[in-house]
């Protein structure tokens, strides 16, 4: 009968291993292999075609002395901080609002969430249209009699990134709201009761008790937002295509343009490596807190 001898290690759970093969391949080939490939090539002077002619950090030096990259980084910072802060704040306020046992909750939630189903391309086009000074909000307000009203974020290099942000928030806050709402709903109802008995006003309970308790949910939301921010590309392409001038360029677009438009792969790889690095800077402390911390502190 089977069992008396210890079976070969690798054959145990063989089915599971076979089933996990796509995952393993993806993890190794795509996420490890391709990443390494890109990083290695970022040290070369590849132009249209990848070649292994190493030039040290030249690409990086050029990258950091390129205005467009610096503007991209700056935009990403504005956009990133803006999305983080506003998504979380607005998302939470909306979630708290929907948590007030209101009528038509489903309808309201649906309205707030539907933009999430739309692509960034669609989002960008719609908001380009709404923010168009000749037809959109500015036009309307002016035709109401405020002749000097100016609201043309997409045509003003100083604030164009906030025009993009408005569209981005419109698309994404609904999802953050849903996540935070389910986090809110997960809070033990007795906490609310306890705070009512203690006579604590609602807003204080939210601020001092509930929000701290929702840390894991906020972390989830944070990670989702961050991952999205770094990837932001479609939205900018559809809404402003980087303009006016290069005022709304973002790193993802810089990478794409370097690789394919300027035919300077090495530069693109260097820029994408920087993007990866910034992701890691965000991600590693988080992973450490989430997983490392869990092990120690239970």
């Amino acid at each position, binding site marked *: 009968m089977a069992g008396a001898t210890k079976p070969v290690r690798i054959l145990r759970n063989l089915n599971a291993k076979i089933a996990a093969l796509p995952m393993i391949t993806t993890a190794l080939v795509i996420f490890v292999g391709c990443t390494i490939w890109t990083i290695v090539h970022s040290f070369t002077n590849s132009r249209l075609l990848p070649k292994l002619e190493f030039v040290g950090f030249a690409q990086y030096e050029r990258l950091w002395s390129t205005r467009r990259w610096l503007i991209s980084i700056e935009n990403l910072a504005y956009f990133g901080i803006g999305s983080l802060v506003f998504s979380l704040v607005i998302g939470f306020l909306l979630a708290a609002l929907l948590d007030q046992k209101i009528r038509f909750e489903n309808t309201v939630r649906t309205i707030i969430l539907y933009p999430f189903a739309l692509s960034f391309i669609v989002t960008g086009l719609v908001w380009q249209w709404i923010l168009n000074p000749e037809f959109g909000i500015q036009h309307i307000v002016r035709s109401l009699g405020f002749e000097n009203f100016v609201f043309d974020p997409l045509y003003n290099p100083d604030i164009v990134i906030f025009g993009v942000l408005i569209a981005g928030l419109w698309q994404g806050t609904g999802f953050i709201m849903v996540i935070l709402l389910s986090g809110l709903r997960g809070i*033990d109802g*007795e*906490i609310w*009761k*306890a*705070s*009512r*008995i*203690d*006579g*604590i*006003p609602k807003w*204080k309970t939210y601020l*001092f*008790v509930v929000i*701290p*308790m929702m840390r894991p949910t906020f972390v989830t939301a944070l990670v989702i937002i961050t991952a999205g921010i770094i990837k932001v590309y479609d939205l900018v392409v559809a809404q402003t295509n980087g303009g006016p001038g290069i005022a709304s360029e973002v790193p993802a677009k810089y990478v794409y343009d370097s690789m394919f438009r300027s035919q300077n792969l090495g530069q693109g790889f260097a820029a994408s490596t920087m993007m990866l690095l910034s992701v890691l800077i965000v991600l590693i402390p988080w992973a450490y807190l989430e997983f490392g911390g869990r092990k120690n502190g239970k």
Partner: protein
Amino acid sequence: MTSVSIQNLDLNFGAVNVLKQLNLSIEEGEFLVLLGASGCGKSTLLNCIAGLLDVSDGQIFINGKNVTWAEPSDRGIGMVFQSYALYPQMTVKGNLSFGLKNARLPKPEIEERVARAAEILQIEPLLHRKPGALSGGQRQRVAIGRALVRDVDVFLFDEPLSNLDAKLRAELRVEIKRLHQKLGNTMIYVTHDQVEAMTLADRIAIMRDGLVQQLAGPDEIYNRPANKYVADFIGSPAMNFFQGRSTSAGKIAIGKLEFDLAGYNFVNGPTDGDVWFGYRPEHVVLGEAARQMPLTVEAVAEIVEPMGSDTLIWTKIEGYDFRIRTDGQYKVAAGDPLLVGIDPRFASIFDKTTEERV
């Protein structure tokens, strides 16, 4: 003086009528336990008293004031929850003082109250820890402390011990009892644990489907349950029941057995009619001593469950399952013959149709 008085309280969740014209009056300093099966409306009632639920009808008075529409924090009540409901991000001290700070009490006053509560509950060394770093029992104490600092007249407990393990539960039970003896506040305590109810209560209200079935001292509930539901609910193992016929002459017939109910304390004297004859497993007398009892039956032990301090014996009498609880030192094995003695003085008899005590 009446501390809490509930008059004609109705509570509906949508179309569901959870509390039905409930009346209850609790004396000052009394320890009242609400006991009942899950879903009978205990928590609901407590939430109504606390003001956490809006009543559908009726009135609630606390210390003579009509608080039906008052805010929870204005009712002079403190509440302790099953899940403790501590604020996890604050230290113990923060938990205790949060409500006070919010009421804008002066700082020294807050300090003093927290210190006093911490002393009473012996949680001084824990004041600067967060709830996550406390054991279940300690958390429970902090939860009680939160009510304590608010200097309230009435404490409400909603199954405060049911998340704890048996040993800790027994310990904290005693502590709550001590606390009550020390503070002398009115306490309303919800549980579905009989042992807690029996040991803690001055009076027990047995609830069923939003109605109070019996409101009396533990002793009376145990010994003179008002109806069959209460009799069946209280006691473990449960009371044994036989169907029988009683006569106005004070006799009863169960199957082939007939005997006199001499010594049974009738509510309105003996009457003719079908009845349930209930008898608690622990009141059974076994062995030779059984011969002195008004009713002596021979039976066979089917299953014997030794539980250390006691032994449970399962047998059959007149076709009815019959449980006997006896001393742990009593040696008996499955299949052994038994001599079972029953004393009507300890029995409870209920009308077959109304199920009320006769």
